[in-house]
Structure formats: C-alpha cells, structure tokens
C-alpha cells in the first residue's frame, strides 16, 4: 500500500512539474487566442501604428 501511494504521489509531482514547465492550462482565461490566421471573430480592431 505504501509503495502504491508513494508511486501515485511521485506521478503527481512529476505531472505538476511537466505542466508547470510548459505552463499548460495557465494561459490567461480572458485572452482570446486565434486559431485561424487573420481572424479573431468579433474582437475589436485597433489598427497598427
């Protein structure tokens, strides 16, 4: 039982390390990312200076 728990916790730590290093799921929720080139849907256009 101890080995199983330790192994599980080790997997959790390693998993946390992986998602932390690559920032998976940590992008700001309110940032809209484009998935198609040149289109952002109904977002405002600000122009390029």
């Amino acid at each position, binding site marked *: *039982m*101890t080995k*199983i*728990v*330790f192994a599980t*916790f*080790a997997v*959790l*730590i390693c998993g*946390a*390390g992986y*998602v*932390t*290093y*690559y*920032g998976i799921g*940590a*992008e*700001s929720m*309110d*940032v*809209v*990312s*484009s998935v198609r*080139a*040149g*289109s*952002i849907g109904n*977002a*405002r256009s*600000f*122009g*390029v*200076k």
Partner: protein
Amino acid sequence: MSDKLHALNCKTCAAPLQRQGGHQVRTLTCGYCGTVMDVRDEFKVLAQYEGLERPTSPFRLGMQGEIKGVMFTVIGIIGAGYEDRWGRYDWVSAQLFSPTHGYAWLTWNQGHFVFARRVRELPKPSKFTGGRPKRTKIRFRDQKFRFYEGYQSELTFVEGELTWQAALHERTKVAEFIAPPLGFEFEASEDELAYGLSEYMERDEIRAAFGIAEPLPAPVAIHPLQPFKPGALQTALSKAGYIFTIIAGCCLVITFVLGSGWRIQKVDQTLAPGSTLSVPFSVSRADQLVDINIETALDNSWTYIEGTVSDSSDQTVAVIGREIGYYHGVEGGESWSEGSRGTTASIRVPAPGDYRLDLEVDPESPVTTPGRIIIEEGVMPLRYFFVLLVFFALMAASLPIRRRHFEKQRWSEVLDDDD
C-alpha cells in the same frame, strides 16, 4: 472437601457443577438456583440468590481459550456496574484459571474485551485516595498511566467459581488509570486494596481463541483502553504526505526563483486616453508561457487597455482587454485599498520568432498615467505546485487529525465530569 474434587452437585438443587479453578477458589455459585457455597468449608451454603438474570455476554462456564500463549478456562462469571449522572454502565467479567499461570479476568464491556491480572508490584505513587484525582499520573513498570475515572461498582451477578467470597450488591471503589492499550486499576473493598493491570484485546483475537461462533454486538463508542489503529491506507497517505509536502514545497520555491522567466522587452510610455503603443519583442521558445505585464501609476482612478499580439506576418496571435483600477483611502481611522495598479496576461505564441504588441488606451479612460510594459518569456506558473503542496499537507495532517479526534472521543466520557 479435597481440592481434587472436580464434579459435584449443588447443595440446594442438586444440579451438576464443575470444579476447575485450583486451590485459590473460595466460593462456588450454582448457576441454576443461585446458591453460593464455601469451597473451603465442605461447600456450606453461604447465601442464595434466586431469580438472578444472567447478563448477556459471550462467556460460558468451561470455555477454554489461549491468551498470550496461555490456555485459560472460564471458571466463574460476574456481572457488575455503576451508575452516575450520565447513565448506567454494566459489564460482565469472566474469572479465568490456568494451572500454570493462575488467575486472570476477561471483561466484556459494550462490545470490547479487556484482559486483566492482579499484580503485586506497587505503582508509584501507591496511595489510593478513593477520590477522583484528576490529572494524576502513576508509573508502573516504566509505563506512565493517566487517571481516567473513579467510581464505585456494584456486583449484580455471580456464577461459578470465584477467588473471593463474592456477595451480591457488594461494592468496590475503583480508580482507573490508562496508557492505551494498557490500564491500571486500584480496587478497594472493605478489607482489601488490590492492583490490576489490564490490556485491551482485539475482538477477533478473543473470538478465535475461545471459539465464539455467535455474532457479537458491534462495539459501542471508544473503549478507554482501545488503541488508535489507523488503516494501512491512512498510514501510507500520511507518511507519503509528509515527504511530498517537503518535495512540493521545494519545487514551489524553485519554480518561484526560476519560473519568473526572463525579460525580453521593456518600454516606458505615457498612457493617455485614446493613445496607442506598439511594442516589438522576440520569443526564443514557443513551448513556454509569455507574460505581458502592464504597470501604471493610477491613483483612485481607472483605465482600460486593449492589446493585440501579432506575428511577423501580421497574423493576430492573441487579443487582450483589461481594466486597470486602483483605489485607496482612510475610513474610520483605517486605511483601505482596492484593485491593482498593474495587470499581467499570460499568452502562448505558436512559434519562436518576432512578434508585436499593439496597445490602445480606451478613449473613455478618465486619466493619463505613466505606464511600463514588460514582456517576459519562459514563465512558469506556481499554481500547480501550490495546489499539490496544500493537498500533500492535508494528507500529512489527516492521521494526526484523526488520532486527535479518536482521543477526544476516548476522553469525552469523563472530561465533562467536574467532580
């Protein structure tokens, strides 16, 4: 009568009785008619207790079982109890006999078993006040025992062979001290002060030892001598929790130190309503987050900033819209603050290369404020290790919390007593 006599008939009802208890037996009580006979005086009738109701217990005269490697026989059974303002408490004790190890007791109390033997060694201190010495501790055989409770028990049932001249309704003052799974008792009757060492026994162990086939009632509450025995899973979770709390803590610190990323652009610009700003930056790796930090000097005001991140082909990568507001003051002599002077947006770019951040301050923003835009790459979030740190800490704490709750239940019966 000789001690070698093993079978005889009751002097009153002629029921067949057994003598199994060795030479220290004083009385033999017939389980059929309640006649108490003096074993050392030709079985002279000393008393008769008619209509005694046998208390419910798993014990029967003649049962044999091995406890701690010693074979014992149940030679006598007594019922006892006491009453206080919280209720009535009854238990049944079996007098045990072993030809090689002498006499002992096995008590059945609300679903729990306790094995006890008289001891001749004196505890320290050895004085028995007969009162209720709260917070008193004694030491016996290098073990500390803490006072649990004192009471006066009354004998309510007798059957079989006993090592003293037991009389129905006789009273004994008892002081119990505990060091689970062990207990130490002072027992004071009119003419005797005795000491006993008890030990909590597991139900399955006693059932197997004595071949008790009938189902036993479930234990009621926590017995004073019942040891705290966590399951294997709980022990493993707590043990691993301690170690991984430290590991998660270290990972959190390392991430904090190394995970703030490195600066790839910094621009200072006044942010006036309606103004725009274009900030170029280069990202060397696309597999980690990029943080866009916008800092202002707002004071009791707000502004709204929108931004677009585009790649070198003017393809929009991300769109950001943030309101920044900071308010503070003093009210009732206490200062307060609300909001923040800056904001951070974490984005992910599709590929390494050159990008541009175009910002526009909302024309309806009421103030102009100095601004600083800092862009960092290689940023690592702290949240995951923080969540794990909290989770592992809870796992580590689960066993001590459960143990504390168990001990609270153990002492709940006596802690409210202010006598």
